């Protein structure tokens, strides 16, 4: 069921909540602006902080189609925008030759929409019954600069020109969400056209709320310990890669699978690979450091009661 864009920041916050996305009001503001002013939303942040999820939730709660373009190095027009179906074109040419059609008709024929393979960017410009789709351009930092420059053109006018066919323009611009893990800086020219938001690691309170929604099977006491422990880890200065929300959720799932009811040093050591993804980080935390953090966590939780 397609629905209209929300009218205020509070509505946007409620909207995201309906898709079980626990957002800060600040994020809701950025989303609200992007929706109402029809400009792309640029989300940057560490891996596993819920950037991609924003687009998915938006598509779901607004009842729009989600079109996803995963970026990678060397991503080009042929795989991002459109490509001609060469095999079919070849066959068509052969058939036409036996039918003795004029060359111009053949050309017109084989460069028609029938032979066009639409890729995500072009698809997103096509009208959709449910309303303009949500276009998720994921991990733009993985694509190279030439693609970024091309994207600039598409996102400013929401049109794509195909030399053989003409220009395709979106009647209503799609909702664009761009994410980046910041493995390189995206050019300012592109960011300038978007509403920018840095998704940070959540506060303990918010993380607990997220965990309740995403891992409902976890015991409340365990959830609290898990969140407190992860927050402690994020405060540890010399970790190379801090655990994101995705890792917290995975960890909660893993612990419930193993029927752990309360965190113990052994349980942490056994499952640390879910939380930390670098060997040096694991080696640093495993054992005595984990025990130390855990005792701090337990003391704090006991004090809070």
């Amino acid at each position, binding site marked *: 069921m397609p629905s209209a864009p929300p*009218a*205020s*920041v509070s509505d946007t916050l409620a909207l995201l909540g309906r898709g079980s996305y626990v957002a800060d*009001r*600040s994020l809701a*503001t*950025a989303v*609200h*602006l992007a929706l*109402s*002013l029809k*400009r792309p939303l640029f989300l*940057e942040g560490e891996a596993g902080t819920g950037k991609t999820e924003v687009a998915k939730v938006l598509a779901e709660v607004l009842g729009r189609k989600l079109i996803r373009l995963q970026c*990678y*190095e*060397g991503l*080009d027009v*042929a795989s991002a925008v459109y490509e*001609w179906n*060469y095999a079919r*074109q*070849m066959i068509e*040419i052969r058939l036409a*030759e036996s039918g003795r059609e004029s*060359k111009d008709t*053949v*050309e017109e024929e*084989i460069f028609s929409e029938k032979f066009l393979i639409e890729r995500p960017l072009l698809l997103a410009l096509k009208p959709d019954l449910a309303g303009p789709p949500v276009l998720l351009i994921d991990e733009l*930092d993985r694509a*190279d*600069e*030439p693609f970024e420059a091309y994207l600039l053109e598409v996102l400013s006018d929401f049109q794509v020109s195909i030399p053989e066919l003409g220009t395709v323009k979106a009647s209503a611009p799609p909702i664009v969400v761009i994410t980046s*893990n*910041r*493995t*390189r*800086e995206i050019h*300012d020219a592109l*960011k*300038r056209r978007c*509403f*920018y*938001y*840095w998704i940070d690691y959540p506060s303990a309170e918010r993380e607990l709320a997220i965990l309740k929604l995403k891992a409902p099977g976890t015991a409340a006491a365990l959830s609290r310990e898990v969140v407190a422990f992860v927050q402690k880890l994020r405060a540890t200065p*010399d970790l*190379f890669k801090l655990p994101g929300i995705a890792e917290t959720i995975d960890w909660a799932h893993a612990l419930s699978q193993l029927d752990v009811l309360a965190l113990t040093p052994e349980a942490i050591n056994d499952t640390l690979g879910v939380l930390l993804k670098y060997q*040096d980080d694991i080696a640093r935390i495993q054992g005595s450091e984990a025990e130390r953090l855990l005792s701090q966590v337990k003391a704090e939780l006991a004090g809070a009661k």
Partner: protein
Amino acid sequence: MEGASSPREGGQLLANLMYFARALRAAGLPVGPGQVLNAVEAVRQVGIENRADFYWALHAVFVNRRDQHDIFDQAFHIFWRNPKLLEKMMGLLLPSLSVADPEAQEMNRRLAEALAEGQPGKTREAEQEQEFDAAMSFSEREVLRRMDFEQMSNAEMARAREAVRRLALVLAESPTRRFAVNPRGARIDMRATLRAQLRSGGIIALKRKNRVSRPPPLVVLCDISGSMSRYTRLFLHFIHAVARDRGRVHAFLFGTRLTNITRHLHTRDVDEALDRVAASVEDWSGGTRIGKSLAAFNRRWSRRVLGQGAVVLFISDGLDRDGGAGLAREMERLHKSCRRLIWLNPLLRYAGFAPKSLGMRAILPHVDEFRPVHNLESLEALAEALKRAGPRRLDAAQHWRPELEKRAG
């Protein structure tokens, strides 16, 4: 919800938004007129009833990077309480250009020369120097090439800088995943083939394409501690020359802390660029904390600048105040995150060099190449080496292993 306040009030808000944008620009945020218009639109959407919404609406428009957040935050809170206050604050906050470099005077050489032009005595001197420069014979040039930077007089240093600036650094290209039309290419370009086929008809002439290659990103990490001070200025000239004609060069200086100077290097004038660098660095000619600085680099920057197969030039004498504490680990991390890690060490010029200090011994097992960098010749050799693909990984470590083991044993 539309900001339907009276036109007079709206006008005031508009003017204030403009002043706010101007204040942000003065504080160093890249704010253009387009963004001011966006801000007006955004504020109209969100309204000004809720201060937090107002804040985040402006934030979404004006802030493009995470590191701009703090500036924005401060500016916002000061400005929207009292716009006048901010101007005064800025006057106090602007960095005063205090430079601990003894050669700071020389940094403004060009400026000084430009000012002194009216004075006849000075000009003559400059002319004389120029004549002398032109008269430098081949053998003199050879001597200069081999002369240690450390032993150069100021005039020789100036000439060496000139030479460094002319040094062309061409990196061995690495293949990308992009293709371009190439008659001898390995792959068939179907699109071009079909178009050609339509034009000619009959026989299908295959058009070809091939992979495009391009130079990888270059990251320079340069030690500016006291023990390196004789070399520092020359290396800065070198880094500026390298960054000048090329995208994807990132440069960092470290002594006791890490400073990113990439942005300053985009200034074309070398003296001006170096002035800016000098103003942004706070730990000139102090001690060295290599491990700590590298840890900062690894955590804050490595994922952002080392993508896509970067080549890293690590310029340091390896003398570490912390005695190499935690250095090996960070060095290993750095090495694993880049395509090629080259350690340039001015101390390597001595024939009997042995990696004695704890710092060096921590670094050496994790670098691909270990090269001297003390005269023009060694810089030329570096340029030559960068043109070719790198050696096997950890070649330097293999070569120096007996030395390291002897010391350890």
